[in-house]
């Protein structure tokens, strides 16, 4: 028996890694001083600083956040058997927003406190908010046994925490501008520390998700059939939700709310190769990294020397792409069926 395109996942993985390296080089070259910083970095300490301390961690950070979101998207879509599931499904985005909002409100918005927050507390507050929201979702859903209950609890937590953030912003409108950077998503302030943190979380989460991947394969047949195949659904579902919480919480804490990367990456991979989740998780993650790097490059280049918020760009491009993909797949399925 022959299996067509048996090496396609490996080829795609290598292609995505190569593309990420190309984007990394491009990311180093793009900025207010253009290619010059890249060519002068050997002899000019300022150019070196621009490349090493600003551009390189920014591009690497874009890959890290995108890879975490892509992984989350693949986990969420497999776990909830829903192609529209995204990394923020269990309330992590609303939780992170509320975390940042509360931190800003508590500490005020004076320049000194903002600086302190940016260096010490803002990402921590976002992470606590994101993971706290997922925990609240689990409590409201009374565990991980019932998928529908989890989804509903996630929606409720998202709406309620979103409303709480809005209320704080209504009472303290001066926070709006400070919140804007977080809500629109940005990779501009990612440093090496954040990169290393995201890399460590990515390694941990990818390994865990890969270990649990047979459960996601089995769930493609429905819960009863997955159980009948001897898959330990309950503990592994909890493990996958923890992966979702940790990875999405880390990404959102470092780069703010970046839309569509987590949703689009698994769809893109599935449109290119058919693979089991052991591959799909890794490929979606690599695809997410490449997508966010590409969006970050565009955000920096489109209206240079100014920048667009990367989250706005991912929303516009990702949404448009998904619509196109949906149209193309409908046409392909219709053709396959006839």
């Amino acid at each position: 028996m022959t299996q067509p395109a048996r090496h396609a996942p490996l080829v795609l993985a290598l292609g995505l890694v190569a593309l990420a390296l190309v984007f990394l080089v491009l990311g180093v070259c793009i900025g207010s001083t253009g290619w010059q910083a890249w060519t002068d970095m050997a002899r000019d300490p300022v150019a070196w600083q621009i490349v090493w301390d600003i551009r390189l961690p920014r591009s690497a950070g874009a890959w890290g956040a995108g890879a975490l979101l892509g992984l989350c998207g693949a986990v969420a879509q497999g776990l909830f058997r829903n192609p529209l599931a995204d990394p923020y499904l269990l309330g992590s985005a609303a939780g992170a927003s509320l975390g940042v909002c509360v931190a800003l409100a508590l500490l005020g918005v004076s320049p000194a406190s903002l600086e302190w927050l940016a260096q010490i507390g803002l990402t921590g507050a976002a992470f606590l908010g994101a993971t706290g929201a997922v925990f609240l979702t689990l409590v409201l859903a009374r565990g991980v046994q019932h998928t529908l209950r989890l989804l509903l609890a996630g929606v409720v937590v998202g709406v309620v925490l979103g409303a709480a953030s809005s209320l704080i912003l209504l009472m303290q409108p001066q926070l709006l501008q400070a919140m804007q950077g977080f809500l629109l998503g940005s990779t501009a302030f990612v440093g090496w520390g954040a990169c290393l943190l995201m890399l460590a979380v990515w390694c941990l989460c990818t390994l865990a998700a890969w270990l649990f991947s047979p459960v996601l394969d089995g769930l493609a047949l429905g819960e009863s059939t997955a159980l009948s195949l001897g898959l330990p659904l309950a503990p592994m579902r909890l493990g996958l939700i923890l992966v979702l919480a940790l990875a999405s919480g880390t990404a959102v804490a470092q780069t703010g709310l970046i839309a569509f990367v987590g949703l689009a990456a698994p769809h893109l991979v599935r449109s290119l190769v058919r693979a089991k989740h052991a591959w799909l998780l890794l490929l979606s993650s690599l695809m997410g990294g490449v997508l966010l790097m590409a969006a970050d490059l565009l955000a920096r280049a489109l209206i240079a020397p100014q920048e667009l918020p990367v989250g706005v760009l991912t929303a516009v491009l990702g949404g448009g792409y998904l619509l196109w993909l949906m149209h193309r797949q409908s046409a392909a399925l219709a053709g396959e069926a006839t």
Partner: protein
Amino acid sequence: MSRSAHALRAQGVSARLGGVQVLHPLDLQLEPGRWTSIVGPNGAGKSTLLKVLAGLLPHQGSVSLGGRALSQWPARERARTVAWLGQGESVVDDLSVLDLVMLGRLPHQPWLGKPDAQDLAVVEKYLRQTQAWEWRNRSVGALSGGERQRVLLARALSVEADILLMDEPLANLDPPHQADWLQMVRGLRERGTTVVSVLHEISMALQADALVVMAQGRITHHGACADPQSHRALEQVFDQRITIHTVQDQWVAIPTPSTITNPL
């Protein structure tokens, strides 16, 4: 296919769904190597009983497999022994037919292991048996209801379990493929597989060795399909709205129209 004599037995089994008692305490013993059909009107508890027998639903009472409580079987060993085909299984559309059927081999593969030559041979065998081999590279979403049902059947068969539990396996199948299914079940039985099927096609159900008749969460009759008492129990449970006749040495259930005047 290796076959061992595992008898499936339910003792004092009952179940509630959403606060409603859908199964009242019942006992049932299914002999190994026989085909048993479970029949009854809608809402009789047939699918619930089958899920309980498969160990897929919380219940009171005990279900044992080969004299050992089902809950004490290691999950993967149980999965290799009892295969399940659910009613109207919803499958993620972008899976290929081959990948879907290969999932039936999960209990035989090491965790995160790749399918070996035997897995591939088994999958090919059942895809050919269900005449689905030609679409092995198509996505499930592109299949018709009947084609999808044949693929799902191939998935359940590829487990190669001693016991095969099927809930409405004939749904969406056209008459020729229903006949193929019947032949396939007879072949399984000859090889010693215990087959339990919930069926709404009474004439097909009457081809089994034994008949379990259910109504309102209870077993009202359990006997051989050849037994006239089983036929009477069937007619009774459907309020005499079917009659069992013999056509060319086979029992056939013929529905009778309602006495209620159709307002149209």
